């Protein structure tokens, strides 16, 4: 949408685009919404949230069936006045109502941000999004010019993005790609609490596979699909951002307690890894990593500061997530077709390692300690059984993909991610069984203990 920066009332002519007004939609200063009823009587109210949809449309939060709502439905027009919080320029938008969405990515994206606004304004539990009213923007007018200059950003997004992508392109393995991505975001964008999570469709959950900036790595910690900003971003495949933390979206002790309560009663120990997130985040953002329509991960960032992630950060991190998806796919190309070496004679070790497998959730415990679960757990169980039965120590991704018992998803990108997760958990636990890559599409099990296997 384009409009005149100043109409006949104001003098100077500047071409305005909706893209240039996005700071006005951060919810910092309440916007004014005016409507008119069929009889010509105006109505005016504050609007909690105006959401940028695309260059030609915005969505307004519909929370109550009130006079505003009735006017919108009957006359199908509205007008809003917004203020740029950085420059205090005033803009007016003339709107034509198109439709209401009460579910789906746009709705969920607005719902999360409204929860943040409610939390910030003391309206938590009162605000409830009933729908996203989508309007086409008919006209934009700047009615008061900027009064203060726009602050110089601490990080220029585009050159920083260029440096991040250059760093990412140097990764030779998926694990390295994850680490380089987070390192580059921290280094070039100054965002220092980060995670990459990968989905495990069999459990409708995601597992942290790389983290940055936390006292404990938290690799292997779980987020359920639909829980918090990460879970909603994964379920809806849409960026979810919250500027002021809301208890509704805080992935904290409450969800952790629920996971524990839902765990199998005979599970010997705490069935998971503690989520490493900030104790008191104010801003969070989760970007889906999507390749050919499939979710292959979630890139997550958080900060103790409110309003840390705005539209520009969302754009930048979305570009990084897109690059992450493409490079993940590139690093998952054809398996090595060479023959595997013959299994050596079984070695004898002084130490033993008891590996216990719980079939209910494919969780694996080593000498009584939780190690991993889900697809990664099933993979490890298959490998150690093969190793114990035949002495095999080298494996290919291909044989895992073809394995019916592993129930791998049809999109293959996820397998390499599960192997990275498994490799990292084994390394963190410093077990006498490790995984290392030994070629494209193949890897080696390094075993330095006598394994005893127990199926539960």
């Amino acid at each position, binding site marked *: 949408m384009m409009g005149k920066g100043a109409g006949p009332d104001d003098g100077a002519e500047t071409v305005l685009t909706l893209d240039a007004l996005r700071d006005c939609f951060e919810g910092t200063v309440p916007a004014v919404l005016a409507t008119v*009823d069929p009889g010509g009587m105006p109505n005016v109210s*504050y609007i909690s949230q105006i959401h940028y949809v695309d260059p030609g449309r915005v969505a307004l939060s519909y929370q109550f069936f009130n006079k505003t709502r009735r006017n919108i439905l009957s006359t199908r*027009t509205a007008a809003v006045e917004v203020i740029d919080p950085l420059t205090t320029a005033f803009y007016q938008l003339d709107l034509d109502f198109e439709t209401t969405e009460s579910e789906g990515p746009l709705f969920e994206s607005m719902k999360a941000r409204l929860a943040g606004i409610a939390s910030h304004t003391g309206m938590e539990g009162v605000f409830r999004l009933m729908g996203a009213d989508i309007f086409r923007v008919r006209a934009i007018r700047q009615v008061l010019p900027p009064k203060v200059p726009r602050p110089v950003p601490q990080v220029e997004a585009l050159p920083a993005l260029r440096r991040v992508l250059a760093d990412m392109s140097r990764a030779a393995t998926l694990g390295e790609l994850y680490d380089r991505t987070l390192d580059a975001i921290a280094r070039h964008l100054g965002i220092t609490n980060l995670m990459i999570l990968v989905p495990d469709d069999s459990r409708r959950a995601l597992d942290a596979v790389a983290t940055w900036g936390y006292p404990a790595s938290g690799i292997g910690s779980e987020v359920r699909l639909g829980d918090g900003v990460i879970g909603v971003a994964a379920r809806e495949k849409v960026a979810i951002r919250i500027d002021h933390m809301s208890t509704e979206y805080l992935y904290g002790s409450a969800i952790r307690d629920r996971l524990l309560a839902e765990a199998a009663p005979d599970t010997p120990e705490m069935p998971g890894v503690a989520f490493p997130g900030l104790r008191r985040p104010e801003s969070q953002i989760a970007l889906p990593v999507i390749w050919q329509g499939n979710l292959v991960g979630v890139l997550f960032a958080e900060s103790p500061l409110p309003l840390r992630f705005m539209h520009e950060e969302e754009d930048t991190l979305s570009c990084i997530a897109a690059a992450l998806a493409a490079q993940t796919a590139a690093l998952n190309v054809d398996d090595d077709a060479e023959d595997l070496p013959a299994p050596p004679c079984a070695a004898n070790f002084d130490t033993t390692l008891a590996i216990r497998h719980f079939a209910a959730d494919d969780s694996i415990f080593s000498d009584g300690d939780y190690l991993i679960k889900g697809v990664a757990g099933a993979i490890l169980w298959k490998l150690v059984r093969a190793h114990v039965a035949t002495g095999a120590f080298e494996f290919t991704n291909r044989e895992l993909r073809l394995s019916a018992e592993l129930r791998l998803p049809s999109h293959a990108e996820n397998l390499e991610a599960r192997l990275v997760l498994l490799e990292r958990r084994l390394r963190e636990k410093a077990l006498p069984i490790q995984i290392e890559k030994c070629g494209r599409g193949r890897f080696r099990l390094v075993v330095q203990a006598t394994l005893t296997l127990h199926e539960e």
Partner: protein
Amino acid sequence: MPDRTDHLSSRDTLPPRIGPILLPEEVLEFIQSGVSIIVGVVGADGHARAGRALAARVVTGGAIRLLYTEDGNAAIKASASSGGPIAVTFSAPMSHRTIQLKAMSSRAEHFEPDDQISLESQMDAFAGVLRAVGYPASFVQSFCEGRSVNFGALSFSPHAAYEQTPGPGAGREL
């Protein structure tokens, strides 16, 4: 700020009042206490227009004078000049107390010396509230001070008033 600051649809079924209403003294004090004031009018094209005012002043007979910057509020000025209908919502950011007044017509007025006194005291009070709510001082200064030297005034006599404070009483006609 909630978008429930207008009245519930059930109120819309009431027949429109013909004459002006008398507002309780306490409400009159509230709307002159330095609160956020937003305005809805109807443009020449029949579409709604939104705007903001700076202060309100109640005068003899119960009419309300609304004081605004002419810069950026061309629609409000034009509507008042043609006697158009008006909706004005007053809201206190700290307490969320919100009241909407409506009038079938409005009238353009000359900006008077007494308007200047009301405007300055209410803007000072409102700036203090914004600072207390947590807006940065730089924003408050930019938002409240020196935006314009061209002030306009209009008057209206409300025919309907609605309590819009979030809670069980939202939508109640005063």
